[in-house]
């Protein structure tokens, strides 16, 4: 492969891009890579905002009703910097909302889905680039809705991210903006998922059979299916809640209902209906938030263990199994909600079963590490930590799947610990790993590995200090979303532990400065990366770094799966998917 031709190729693309005008090239771009980066940047900014919101929560739990420095006056106004209880509820709601809908989902499917899918399947772009662009720009009205809701009368939504009616319906404009934002995010995800499915099915390079797809792509594919089938339910449900809120319908309002001495216009609905509809989306959404991370981790682990992925097909089947089962387990969020307890039993069985594919995946990752030559680069450290943390998150899930235990731990910090282990220690760590891993492809430069390791070590240590103790808080029955749990005698002794957690949380968020500096600095000053700095097999690594418009400067033809590390057929310990097999060499 001649570098010279590659360069001219890239140059040509750069020029065509330039000719299209700055705005259309870098802002309203149709290029999947630029759109992916747009998603990446906006989610990282929201990650910061969401993290700050979490610090507000942690402050209150560590120093209840004490004036909060800096943010206190911003949030609470006239009360001398103390966090007012409704502000606390707002923090809880908006932290979850921002993290789920503006960080995790967009960064996984939006950023990495967009950036990687065409590159990894050998396509020059998405099937419908315009739709792709729209899926990003539909996020902006959602950003404005949610961000702006902090400044409307009554502030942002306080209904919890689950927005359970009838309480959510007592909220004002904040809730309306929240629902509108949610619907817009739904539309954006919908556009993305349709595009991903089409692209993966239709636009694979020659030789890229379904079972030669990297796990990342399989995960994105299944995620897209989940989104496509679950999202309409949420969109419909949030639309129903909007009409309940603004137009006086009564889907979720019981007969004769009144609160806060407000007369209500109608009734005859059922609050539980919302929970069913909401969780019908939001439980699959949990897998939307973890499957792509699992896929990316599989790729990273196999690459740095220099060894084929253990049990490729079982991995694919287990992802599909998670997706299938994911649709019939939503009721486990509602064990104590008042639904028929008979349903509880059914959901317990299905929930227990969904632990199975996750277990299979974990064992396969361990199998991949077994007998390899593990290179502990920064991405690998994050990927291994994902496995390690996912074990904790997965095992703690078994507690709440067990209905009698869930009666006790439901809505306690045990749940908080569980989903933070899955979503922060799991997904967010995987995302960090993926950023370190694919950064050279995105920007053509390497991130600093030493600082990356420092970032990893600090984050890894602190996140365990933050989230692990929450398990024992939960065992004690310590409830979620309580602005001042120390009112209760039972929980008074949890204060020191919460202070410890809060210190660690402040430190952890503070330490992300390392990442921010490394990330921004490396964009401009990092050492140049070649096409394949990690000696990886994946197709994306055969493209220039960063890839020009149209991605490949050659026509990729796929000869094998992406995990042929340490293959005996070749001398190198990697065997790129496009490299023709030795048999072809013989004929030469």
């Amino acid at each position, binding site marked *: 492969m001649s570098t010279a031709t590659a360069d001219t190729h890239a*140059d040509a693309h750069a020029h065509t891009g330039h000719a299209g005008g700055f705005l259309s090239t870098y802002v309203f771009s149709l290029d999947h890579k630029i759109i992916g980066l747009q998603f990446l940047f906006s989610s990282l900014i929201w990650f910061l905002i969401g993290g700050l919101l979490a610090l507000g929560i942690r402050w209150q739990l560590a120093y209840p009703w004490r004036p909060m420095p800096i943010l206190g006056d911003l949030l609470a106004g006239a009360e001398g910097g103390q966090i007012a209880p409704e502000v606390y509820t707002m923090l809880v709601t908006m932290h979850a909302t921002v993290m789920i809908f503006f960080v995790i989902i967009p960064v996984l499917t939006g950023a990495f889905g967009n950036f990687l899918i065409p590159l990894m399947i050998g396509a020059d772009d998405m099937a419908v680039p315009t739709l792709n662009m729209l899926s990003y720009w539909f996020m902006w009205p959602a950003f404005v809705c949610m961000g702006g809701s902090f400044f409307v009368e009554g502030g942002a939504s306080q209904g919890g991210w689950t927005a359970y009616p009838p309480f959510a319906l007592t909220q004002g404009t904040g809730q309306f903006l929240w629902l509108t934002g949610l619907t817009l995010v739904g539309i954006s995800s919908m556009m993305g998922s349709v595009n991903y499915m089409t692209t993966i099915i239709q636009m694979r390079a020659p030789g890229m059979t379904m079972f030669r797809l990297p796990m990342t792509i399989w995960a994105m594919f299944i995620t897209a299916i989940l989104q496509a089938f679950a999202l309409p339910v949420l969109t419909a449900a949030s639309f129903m809640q909007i009409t309940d809120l603004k137009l006086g319908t009564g889907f979720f309002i019981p007969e004769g209902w009144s609160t806060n001495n407000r007369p209500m216009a109608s009734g005859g609905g059922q609050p539980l209906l919302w929970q069913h509809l909401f969780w019908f989306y939001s439980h699959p959404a949990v897998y939307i938030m973890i499957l792509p991370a699992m896929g990316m981790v599989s790729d990273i682990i196999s690459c740095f263990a220099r060894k084929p992925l253990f049990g490729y097909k079982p991995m694919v089947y287990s992802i599909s199994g998670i997706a299938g089962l994911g649709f019939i387990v939503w009721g486990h969020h509602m064990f104590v909600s008042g639904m028929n307890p008979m349903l509880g039993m059914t959901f317990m069985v299905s929930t227990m079963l969904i632990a199975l594919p996750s277990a299979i995946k974990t064992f396969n990752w361990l199998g991949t590490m077994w007998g390899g030559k593990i290179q502990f680069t920064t991405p690998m450290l994050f990927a291994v930590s994902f496995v390690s943390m996912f074990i904790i998150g997965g095992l703690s899930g078994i507690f709440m799947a067990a209905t009698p235990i869930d009666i006790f731990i439901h809505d306690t910090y045990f749940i908080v610990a569980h989903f933070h282990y899955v979503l922060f220690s799991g997904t967010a760590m995987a995302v960090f790993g993926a950023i370190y891993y694919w950064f050279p492809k995105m920007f053509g430069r390497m991130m600093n590995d030493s600082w990356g390791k420092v970032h990893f070590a600090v984050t890894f240590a602190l996140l365990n200090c933050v989230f692990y103790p929450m398990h024992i808080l939960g065992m004690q029955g310590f409830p979620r979303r309580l602005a001042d749990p120390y009112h209760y005698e039972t929980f008074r002794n949890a204060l020191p532990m919460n202070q410890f957690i809060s210190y660690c949380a402040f430190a952890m968020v503070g330490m992300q400065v390392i990442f921010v500096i490394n990330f921004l600095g490396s964009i401009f000053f990092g050492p140049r990366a070649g096409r394949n700095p990690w000696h990886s097999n994946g197709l994306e690594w055969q493209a220039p770094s960063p890839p020009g418009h149209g991605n490949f400067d050659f026509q990729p033809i796929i000869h094998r799966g992406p995990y042929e590390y340490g293959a005996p057929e070749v001398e190198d310990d990697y065997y790129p998917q496009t490299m023709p097999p030795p048999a072809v060499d013989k004929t030469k």
Partner: protein
Amino acid sequence: MNTHIILTCSGLLVRCRLSAAFLSVVCFLMVTGCQRAEELGPVAEPASVAEIRQAFSSGADALASDGAAIATGTGWATLRGQFVYDGTPPQMKPYDVRGEDRAKCSRAGKAPLQETLLVDPETMGIANVVIFIRDAARVHESAQPNDESIVFDQKECVFLTHVAAMTVGQTLEIKNSDPMGHNTKIEGRKNVFNQSVPANETLVFSPQKEEPVPVSVACSIHPWMAAYFLPRANGYHAVTGADGSFEIANVPAGEVLEFQVWHESVGARDGGPLVLETPEAKSLKWSRKGRFKIRLEENEEKVLNLTVPASALGG
């Protein structure tokens, strides 16, 4: 290659700038949003606080006088006069009569008219102006508090006495001549009363304390009903009649008397001091508080004819 990277970078910079702009907008909104409303008024200053607290804790200095007016003259005089409206007499709007009592509360099918500003079209006299002496050094026996009762009737959802001025100790006989129940709610600074008055019954209320200005009397059941009530320590008070005339007899002569003039259509709530800036008012040094000082000779019968421009009554 280089160009491409530079372009990518500058593209990123643009995005950074965009997000920076977004962030700064957010920050700006937060900062402005968190600013406390200045309308909440000032906060105490520690230095003056310390000084004043010192003064409070150091015990009261003996004061020469206890503030009561000192008698300087002898004999009695009379003040009479008339308040004349300068302008077109306003048409009073009917009350916003609502609810099931509409029929009973209407005179010949029409809601009663408000009595906020009553001007007699012939004499142009203004009714229901209240004038009283703020502090009298001597009180004539005819102006001493007595125990006569005043009938305070209500009919067709109108208080028949629009302004009830009286002395403390007198009883207000709150009468209800309507076929339905009323309640009478007096929200004074020192006199609070809220009792239901069943149809055709009479309740009594005897104020024990003086009020500095007339206070409102209302009926919660018929919120449009409005009247005023003024208990004073002595009888030196008058409410102008339909022709705007008043008379306060037997006021102490030879003293500087400070009169307060009040009308309900002045001020934000529940009426206020009537402020006049006409030449005759200027000669009385009529103050911004609706007060003027006057000194009468023994047996003098002073006549005050005052022109009230429409603007003084919020017109």
